């Protein structure tokens, strides 16, 4: 799900980069304040080594039948263990390293990938656990949501960029994403359980569970946002004309690629921000 350079149009990646930069600043601030497990000094080596763990964990293959296998992506697992802000920082570090050292994801679009996987993905992966506690079902939901939200964002950003994926390719992609999401959920549940047995001291205290109606509301909002994004990607007719303005098609005036095509991403991002604010409010008032 790492978007390489060259896939997205300038307005789209500029918008998301512009969100991610201040967001990271704020998250650093939050993570410093939260430091849930250990005093500050231990925090940086812990987070760094956890980043290395995420890389290494992707080498352990989980068989899913028919000879196929998948691996942990780790966003929601980290969020459960380290808390959301610290997990976002670790995932950001991982994404930066993947972009520069592994050619996995682009450099100009690094803010987009950070937004999709480190910010939105981790937030979505943490929400169910925050609201319903650390039993198997919310942990599974968290793992699955973290993948689905990132995937829906990628499809949406592509369609905003004029790369319309419709029909059979969209269905194929959706099925693959759904399988990945279920697998991530299952691995996260199994991993949390096994870690709880093997090194219980590394799991934080159970977060206080909030009122179920709020949990349902926030989860519903999340599902709506994800589903809406999916539908927006599936029926992008209104967005097709953007392709003409954007880098992927011939455009005589280079600068116009910078100036056109802003309204759609701006509107979409505002919508996402509203939904996220609602979710946070739902989660906060315990």
């Amino acid at each position, binding site marked *: 799900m790492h978007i390489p350079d060259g896939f997205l149009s300038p307005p789209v990646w500029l918008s998301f980069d512009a969100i991610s930069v201040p967001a990271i600043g704020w998250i650093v601030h939050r993570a410093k304040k939260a430091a849930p497990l250990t005093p500050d000094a231990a925090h940086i080596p812990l987070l760094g*080594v956890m980043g*290395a763990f995420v890389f*290494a*964990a992707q080498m352990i293959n*989980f068989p899913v039948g028919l000879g196929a296998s998948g691996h942990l992506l780790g966003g929601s697992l980290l969020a459960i263990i380290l808390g959301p802000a610290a997990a976002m920082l670790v995932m950001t570090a991982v994404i930066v390293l993947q972009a520069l050292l592994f*050619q996995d994801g682009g450099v100009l679009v690094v803010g987009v990938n950070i937004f999709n996987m480190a910010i939105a993905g981790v937030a979505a992966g943490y929400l169910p656990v925050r609201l319903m506690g650390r039993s198997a079902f919310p942990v599974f939901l968290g793992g699955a949501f973290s993948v689905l939200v990132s995937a829906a964002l990628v499809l949406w950003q592509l369609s905003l960029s004029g790369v319309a994926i419709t029909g059979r390719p969209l269905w194929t992609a959706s099925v693959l994403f759904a399988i990945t999401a279920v697998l991530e959920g299952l691995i996260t549940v199994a991993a949390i359980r096994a870690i709880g047995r093997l*090194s219980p001291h590394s799991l934080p205290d159970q977060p206080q569970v909030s009122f179920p109606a709020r949990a349902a509301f926030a989860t519903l909002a999340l599902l709506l946002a994800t589903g809406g994004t999916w539908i927006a990607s599936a029926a992008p007719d209104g967005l097709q004309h953007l392709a003409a303005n954007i880098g992927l098609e011939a455009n005589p005036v280079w600068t116009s690629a910078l100036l056109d095509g802003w309204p759609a991403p701006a509107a979409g991002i505002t919508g996402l921000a509203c939904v996220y604010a609602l979710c946070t409010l739902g989660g906060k008032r315990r």
Partner: protein
Amino acid sequence: MRHLLLDQWSHRSSTIHSADARTKLVLLLLVLLTISLAPGSIPLVIAPILLATIQVSRLPLNALLIRAALVLPFSALLAVAIWFSGDSSGAATLLIKSYLSALAALLFAATTPLPAWTAALRSWHVPATLIAIIQVTYRYLFVIAEEAQTMSAAARARGGFRFSAATGALAVLFARSWQRAESVHRAMLARGYQP
């Protein structure tokens, strides 16, 4: 391992290697921006510049070209989707843009060691906490990845992972990482680390 190779490349010496990391980072961003904004196949004009720079940095040309192609399978998938929706020039543009961008980023990483580019980011006010996490992640990446590889190799020798066994391996890997983080922290404190 492949990434070790990149680390070795970045420590060679040439005019490009010894240039200031900030300058190189700005140039990289300019090149990527040009590729992103230029329409059609115009980004191809960047190709000779990149090739010349690879020559000047005395890096193995073929190895770099092949490694940058890591991006192509993913791009090709999307290009096919675009092709089927009837936009064959769009598909070609996508391939050209993503490949050239990957090559440019690779060239930067192969001529700039990690301490140099993290220092450049630091001087641009990227939060110190994030930089420190990136550095520690990079430092222990190979150590922990080697443990993971040993575990997978052992599992293959026993006939491959089943789901539950893979979970166990993951938990062991996690517990070991956690212990390592604790000892790293103690070692840092012993050497006078101030957070």
